[in-house]
């Protein structure tokens, strides 16, 4: 009985925030003491279909930024993590990868802002892209660290011994073996970039209006319906990714 109650309560708790935000994203006119907005309309959502709306622009910027960051980091960290894994100081180097997270991205942003201003990268898309690379690259290394096991290195050596060249070894052995972890890295880095607010705001000086910045802007303008709509847009892509990625999510990133 208690277990059943707990299951129901827990399930409702999981879905309630999503339901709640969706109701507000289609809502208008929430006067006190009405429990939900009096009017429901899809007009708010239709602005996404309009080409030049600010929300549309933010959605495009966020998708472009997160995809670019995720692709770059997946490739870069896959190649470089192999040599980190072969290092004598592997554990220490992996520990260093936690630096940006332990320091907090926004604090790192404070420490680095001068250099971005000095190089004219502050307030630009390239600047935010570079800042996000700095915080996500170590995460990529952490994810791939678990992939480079002695078994993988032995398999690589074996293919070389059997006469395969570097390209063949990558195509026929390493890539098929690493497909899942490559996808995991892409998804996780995409999520970090997609969710990022503090660093993007600090380095972008508010000029690079990602979706998270737009949510904050709408909240400050007390436009709760557009804020809810932008929130729903923020939730949908990671929702799709996590659903695809569900099977191997969390396994590589959690150190126990």
């Amino acid at each position, binding site marked *: 009985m208690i277990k059943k109650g707990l299951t129901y309560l827990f399930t409702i708790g999981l879905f309630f*925030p999503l339901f709640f935000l969706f109701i507000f994203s289609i809502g208008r006119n929430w006067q006190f003491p009405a429990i939900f907005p009096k009017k429901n309309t899809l007009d708010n959502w239709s602005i996404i279909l309009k080409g030049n709306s600010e929300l549309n622009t933010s959605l495009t910027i966020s998708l472009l930024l997160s995809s670019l960051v995720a692709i770059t980091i997946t490739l870069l960290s896959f190649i470089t993590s192999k040599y980190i894994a*072969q290092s004598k100081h592997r554990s220490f180097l992996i520990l260093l990868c936690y*630096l940006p997270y332990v320091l907090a991205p926004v604090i790192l942003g404070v420490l680095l802002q001068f250099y971005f201003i000095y190089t004219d990268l502050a307030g630009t898309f390239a600047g935010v892209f570079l800042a996000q690379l*700095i915080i996500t690259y*170590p995460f990529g290394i952490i994810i791939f660290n678990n992939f480079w096991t002695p078994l993988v290195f032995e398999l690589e050596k074996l293919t070389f011994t059997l006469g395969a060249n570097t390209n063949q070894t990558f195509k026929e052995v390493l890539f098929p073996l690493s497909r899942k972890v490559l996808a995991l890295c892409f998804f996780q880095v995409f999520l970090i970039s997609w969710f990022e607010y503090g660093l993007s705001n600090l380095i972008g000086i508010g000029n690079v209006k990602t979706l998270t910045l737009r949510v904050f802007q709408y909240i400050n303008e007390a436009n709760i319906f557009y804020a809810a709509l932008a929130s729903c847009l923020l939730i949908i892509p990671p929702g799709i990714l996590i659903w695809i990625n569900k099977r191997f999510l969390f396994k590589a990133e959690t150190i*126990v």
Partner: protein
Amino acid sequence: MNTGKYIAIISKSIFVVFTLIPVALGFGYAFLYSFGILGILNDGFTLAHWKKVLFTPTLWESLGFSFYIALISLTIAIVFALIIAIYLKQKLQKGFLSIAIYLPLVFPALVMAFFSFLLLSKSGWLSRVSIRLGFINELEQFPNWINDNYGIGIIFTSILLITPFFIILYTNLYHHEKLDNYKELSQSLGASPINTLRKVLIPILLRKSIFTIVLFFIFVMSSYEVPLLLGKQHPQMISVFTVDKLQRFNLLDIPQAYAISCLYGLLVLGTMALFLVKHSKIKLK
């Protein structure tokens, strides 16, 4: 030198460029600025900015407030996560709940903070429901849970954000560590279900997750978006306090912002180093 060695050198250089150099450059500039060696209004080495930061209570209040938020949020989240992971372990491993549990992970901190704001504010959803149900008669009777002194809104949001991570972690750990076998063994040796829980299951789960707990503690302490939206002007959490100092119009606050960043960075790194030295048995896989 063959291609492999070139790639190895380039790879290690990329690692250094992206991981070590930004942190070193950031700390270097911040230290020099905070000691008056760099910066527009600075004119030579001084300890004035550090003294101002260290001997005014605001920084310590901010650190204390961040510590308090992290401690309360994490404790409550872990308790909830343990209850759910242990009691619903079968449902969390197979079927609908095993997929649904991932749903909260798609919520960015900012969106969860906005959800809490709509839910808990004075004119929010809970206050309206309370009036409908007759628990309160007017708006003023509803407690202050947003931008309040105790950071209730921040704690609530942090719990919503952290708990699912720990539920997934504990569900996986329960499975991987084969805790059902330990449970059977302890009960066959005469332990009651409560004793098995208290002395076998929970200690194993907590010990195995200690590194993650410490990391999450630091994450919550350093969180930015949630206290920015739901926090008060005083006391502020450390990230908000630092960024606020940096972005103020008073240029004299900038060296202090850098001093706070350095101090907080050193404090966190020191704590992590101490933790790792003490728990050197934890293997970094």
